[in-house]
C-alpha cells in the first residue's frame, strides 16, 4: 500500500475501489451470503412456501414470545435509564477523582465478558446465595425462587446493558455548558422545573442514543435469557436457537430470525435517518 500513497492522495477513481475490494469480496462471501441463506431458508425449508412466516406471525406461541421480547426489551431499556441517569449525573457532577473512579468501574463492567456477569448473577441470586440468605435472616418464611425467572434474567440484562446507557448519557452531560444552568437559575428556574425544562432536554440526545442501543441489543439477546431466564418465558433469540438446536427446524428458525432482523433494522434505520448510524457506536 505504501507505493500507492501518492496516487492514494489524488482523487482518482480506481484506487479506493482497489483498496476496498478485498474487504468487499470478503464481506460478500462471509457476511451477505450467509445472511441471504437465512432469508432463503425461511421460504424454502422444508418446501417453497410462506408457511413459516404464517406460522411465526399468527401462531399463539410465537406471538407470545415476540410480545414478551418486546416488553422485556422496553422494560430493560427503562430500567437502564433509571439506573444510568443518576450514575451519569453523579459522574458529571462530582470531583474529578470520584468521577474517574466511577468511570473506571463502568468501563470495567463494560469490558467484563457478559458470560462472567451472567454467572455472577447466578451466584448472587442462587438458592445458596447472599440474597436468599439475607431474606432468611429477615425471617421471611416463604422464600421466593429468584433464579431462572423473568426477574433474574431482567436484572442481569439491566446490569449488562447499563454501561451502554451510562456512557452515552455521561458523554452528553459532561459537555453541558454550566453557564446554561446558571442563566436558567438566574431567570428563576429551580428544582424540578430546572431539571424538567433545562437539564433533561439538554441530555435528551444521550438518552436517545443509549435507549436505542440498549433496546436493539436486548431484542436479540441470547445468552443471558437462556441461562438465567425461565424456560417458559423465552425471548426470540432463545426460541430461534431452540428451533435450530433441538428440532433442526431451519425454516421456522430462519423465519423468526428474519422477523427479528427486520424489526431491528427498522429501528436502526429510523435512528440513522435522524441522527446517523455512526454516532450510535462512536
Amino acid at each position: 500500500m505504501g507505493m500507492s500513497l501518492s496516487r492514494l492522495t489524488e482523487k482518482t477513481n480506481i484506487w479506493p475501489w482497489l483498496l476496498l475490494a478485498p474487504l468487499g469480496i470478503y464481506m460478500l462471501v462471509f457476511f451477505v451470503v450467509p445472511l441471504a441463506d437465512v432469508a432463503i431458508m425461511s421460504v424454502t425449508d422444508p418446501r417453497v412456501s410462506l408457511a413459516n412466516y404464517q406460522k411465526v406471525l399468527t401462531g399463539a406461541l410465537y406471538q407470545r414470545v415476540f410480545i414478551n421480547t418486546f416488553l422485556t426489551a422496553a422494560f430493560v431499556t427503562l430500567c437502564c435509564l433509571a439506573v444510568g441517569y443518576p450514575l451519569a449525573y453523579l459522574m458529571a457532577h462530582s470531583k474529578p477523582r470520584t468521577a474517574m473512579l466511577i468511570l473506571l468501574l463502568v468501563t470495567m463492567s463494560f469490558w467484563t465478558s457478559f458470560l462472567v456477569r451472567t454467572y455472577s448473577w447466578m451466584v448472587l441470586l442462587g438458592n445458596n446465595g447472599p440474597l436468599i440468605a439475607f431474606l432468611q435472616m429477615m425471617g421471611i418464611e416463604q422464600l421466593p425462587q429468584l433464579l431462572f425467572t423473568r426477574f433474574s434474567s431482567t436484572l442481569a440484562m439491566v446490569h449488562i446493558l447499563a454501561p451502554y446507557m451510562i456512557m452515552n448519557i455521561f458523554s452528553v452531560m459532561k459537555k453541558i455548558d454550566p453557564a446554561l444552568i446558571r442563566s436558567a437559575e438566574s431567570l428563576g428556574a429551580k428544582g424540578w422545573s430546572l431539571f424538567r425544562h433545562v437539564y433533561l432536554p439538554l441530555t435528551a440526545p444521550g438518552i436517545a442514543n443509549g435507549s436505542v442501543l440498549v433496546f436493539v441489543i436486548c431484542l436479540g439477546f441470547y445468552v443471558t435469557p437462556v441461562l438465567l431466564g425461565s424456560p417458559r418465558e423465552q425471548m426470540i433469540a432463545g426460541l430461534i436457537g431452540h428451533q435450530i438446536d433441538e428440532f433442526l427446524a431451519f425454516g421456522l428458525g430462519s423465519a423468526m430470525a428474519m422477523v427479528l432482523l427486520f424489526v431491528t433494522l427498522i429501528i436502526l434505520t429510523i435512528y440513522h435517518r435522524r441522527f446517523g448510524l455512526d454516532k450510535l457506536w462512536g
Partner: protein
Amino acid sequence: MNTFMRWAGILVVIFIAAPLVIVVPMSFSSANSLQFPPPGYWFGYYRAYFTNPDWLIPTWNSVIIATATTILTMVLVVPATFALVRHKFRGKSAADVMMLMPLAVPHIVMAVGYYSYFGDLGLVHSHLGVILAHTCLSVPIAFLVLSANLKGFDRNLERAAQSLGASPTRTFIHITLPILRPGLIISALFAFVQSFDETVVAIFISGRDAATLPRKMFDSIRQEADPVIAVISTLLFLLVMVGIAAPYFASALRSRAPKPSRPPAGAH
C-alpha cells in the same frame, strides 16, 4: 433533586460493582456448588482449571481464533479504512453503512446463517469457520476505531515529508504508520476482544473440536455450573483490570491526562 440523584447514584455503584467482585471469593471457595459466602477457602479450583484439558483446550482455541481473527480483520480493514476516509467516490456513504452492518444484525441471526452455510461448505466444527465468522463481526469495530483515528490525522505531516523529498513509501513507513500506531493497536485489541468474548456464533458453529472458552463456559453454566467457572471469571476479570489499568499507568508515566477507552457496542 441533587441529593436524591447523589444517593441513587451511590446505590447504582453498588449494583454495578457487586457482581464484578463476587466472583473473586467464589473462585477460592471450597464448596462444590454455588454457595455464597463460601464455607471455606482453598486453591483447588485453580488447580482444577490449570490441569484440566477440558478447560485448557477451549482456552487455547480461543487464543488461536482471536489472534487469527485479529490479523485477518486488520489486513482487510486497514486498506478499506484508507479508502473510505481519504477518498470521495460514488457509493461511499453506502459503503460506510455496509461496514457497520454486522453490528446491526443480531448475532443469533448470523449464527443461524453460519450454521447452515458453513455446514454446506464443511466449515462447521473447525477453527477456520469460527475465524471467518468472527472476522465479519470484528470488521465494523476495528473500522470505527481506525477511521476515527485516521480522520484526526493531520495530513500536512505527510505533505511536509514529501516536500522534503521523501518518497511516498518512505512517507508511509516513517510518518503515517508511526503516527497511526496507537489507533492501529487499539483497533486490533478491540477486534481481539470481540472474538475472544463472542459467544452466540461460537455456540452454534464451533462444535467440540474448535470449542471456544465462552462456548465451554456457556455449556458448563447450563449443565452443572462447575465452580471452575468462578476461577475463569476471576482470571478474565483480572485481565480486564490489567487491560484498563495499563494505559492509565502508561499515561501517568508520561504525565498526561488519562482517558479510558470504550469499545463500540456489539449485539450480544
